[in-house]
């Protein structure tokens, strides 16, 4: 019963400490508390290298927290679960598989029969507009098309929780806006909870219900802002609205300080 009412994701006092190759300890995430409701789109912004991505790997089960608890749908995370989808920053399509076979990979890994997996994969390829490319190999596609393959390959598994680690940061500005709109469209039908990590404040406001500002590393939550812009949104037009600019200014006040701290630290390290 608790599984139905509990929030989609809960991090309670989660810390992650890595051993560095030189034998030292590096704290990536420190005493992080974060709750993501069901069907909520949460964007996490923070200075580069502050530990945002580590937060995602903790939720995904790829890494275990050193301290604290990570709960998904009220259950503690124990390894990679089947509720989670993850879109990576870098290309993670399998280069030796065709587009169709890449999208089929998830269902096939999970034991779905071949014919059914193919049908589902074709359906999602149609939704991302790549039906004509199903026999191509990833190297024959553009960066934006490869990202679409990655999105289809993630959505085809019907994830309850969608983790995105700066998924569009490698794309050019126009493609990026286009992909953001597509993401909102794809997501609208699924009811999945999303954690979207980015360092781009505009992107985060345009997409999310809630923006979480992280501190300079080690990362912990500094402030949470609710975004009350109406949906459905179009990324290109929403950023021109006065309310958007107001929110932007408000959040930047909080985020800018952390960015400054990170930059000063970097300067100190160089000196």
């Amino acid at each position, binding site marked *: 019963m608790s599984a139905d009412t509990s929030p989609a994701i809960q991090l309670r006092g989660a810390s992650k400490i890595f051993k560095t190759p030189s034998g030292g300890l590096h704290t990536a995430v420190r005493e992080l508390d974060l709750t993501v409701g069901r069907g909520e789109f949460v964007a996490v912004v923070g200075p580069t290298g502050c530990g945002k991505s580590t937060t995602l790997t903790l939720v995904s089960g*790829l890494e275990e927290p050193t301290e604290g608890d990570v709960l998904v749908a009220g259950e503690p995370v124990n390894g990679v679960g*089947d509720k989670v989808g993850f879109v*990576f920053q870098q*290309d993670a399509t*399998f280069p030796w598989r065709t587009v169709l076979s890449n999208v089929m*990979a998830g269902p096939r890994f999970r034991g779905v029969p071949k014919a059914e997996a193919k049908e589902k994969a074709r359906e999602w390829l149609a939704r991302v507009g790549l039906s004509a490319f199903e026999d191509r*190999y990833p190297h024959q596609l553009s960066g934006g098309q490869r990202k679409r393959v990655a999105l289809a390959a993630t959505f085809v*598994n019907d994830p309850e929780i969608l983790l995105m680690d700066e998924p569009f940061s490698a794309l050019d500005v126009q493609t990026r806006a286009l992909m953001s709109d597509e993401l909102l469209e794809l997501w609208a039908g699924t009811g999945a909870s999303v954690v979207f990590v980015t360092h781009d404040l505009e992107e985060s406001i345009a997409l999310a219900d809630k923006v979480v500002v992280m501190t300079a590393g080690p990362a912990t939550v500094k402030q949470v802002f609710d975004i009350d812009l109406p949906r459905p949104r179009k990324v290109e037009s929403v950023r021109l609205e006065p309310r958007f600019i107001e929110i932007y200014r408000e959040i930047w006040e909080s985020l800018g300080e952390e960015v400054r701290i990170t930059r000063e630290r970097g300067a100190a390290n160089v000196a």
Partner: protein
Amino acid sequence: MSPEVLSTPVVDTAKTPDRSQSRARAARKRRIVVTVARVLLLVAVLGLWEVLSRTKAIDPFNFSMPSKIWDQIWTWLTHGTAIGSLGEQIWYTLYEALLGWVFGVIAGVVAGIVLGRIVFLADVLGPYIKVLNSIPRIVLAPIFVIWFGLGPASKVASAVVLVFFPVFFNAFQGAREVDRNLVANARILGASDRRVTLQVVIPSATSWIFTSLHVSFGFALIGAIVGEYIGATKGVGLLIAQSQGTFNTAGVYAAMVILAVVALAAEGLLTFAERRIFRWKPASSGS
């Protein structure tokens, strides 16, 4: 004024096919020049050898000469060798090399992938593999002849030990250097450990493994030849040993030429197979 402005681009578009044609012609010309230069170089080297040998500037007994080597190959082809037909000797050597190569590759790939995936095993076995690798493995050939006799088994064994290590190290490296993102992605998509190994690690290690396959077929041939040279009843290596025993220098060279042809043919087959397997890879600028 305006007619001039208009005419300029027209002239330009008229020139474009011309330019691409002349470029194609230049490329064709260059290819011809390269081929001609290659043939000339070969003719010059062989001619010089022949002339020096005939004029006794170099000792014809020790160094032989191209015409004699060709005569020897021709005699072997038409009349057979002292130990049977030439085809049989080549087939014997090829059979031993191929068998050794296949066993060596299978063992190397399996061991490399297993150790690449299981860190504990790699840590335990690491130093021993280094020790084994540091033995010059060619010295094992006489031991194999003692163990397995004069038949093909001893040649196959020496080919296997020569092939195993380069393939093993490449497969190991390939398994270790799999893109972590791909592994993470496969795990998130729901792949079990076994599936990660079969469907992510092995495919991404194949390009590493194939690099070693090219080198290792040469090693397999070396293993078979050395084995035959030390003691055999048939094979090109035995042909070399016998030619040497009868002070037939031309015979030694002739056997070398035959081996080169065999190795090149095998290399061609391998490249063909590689092209088919790596259709997913972006075409390299070389091909």
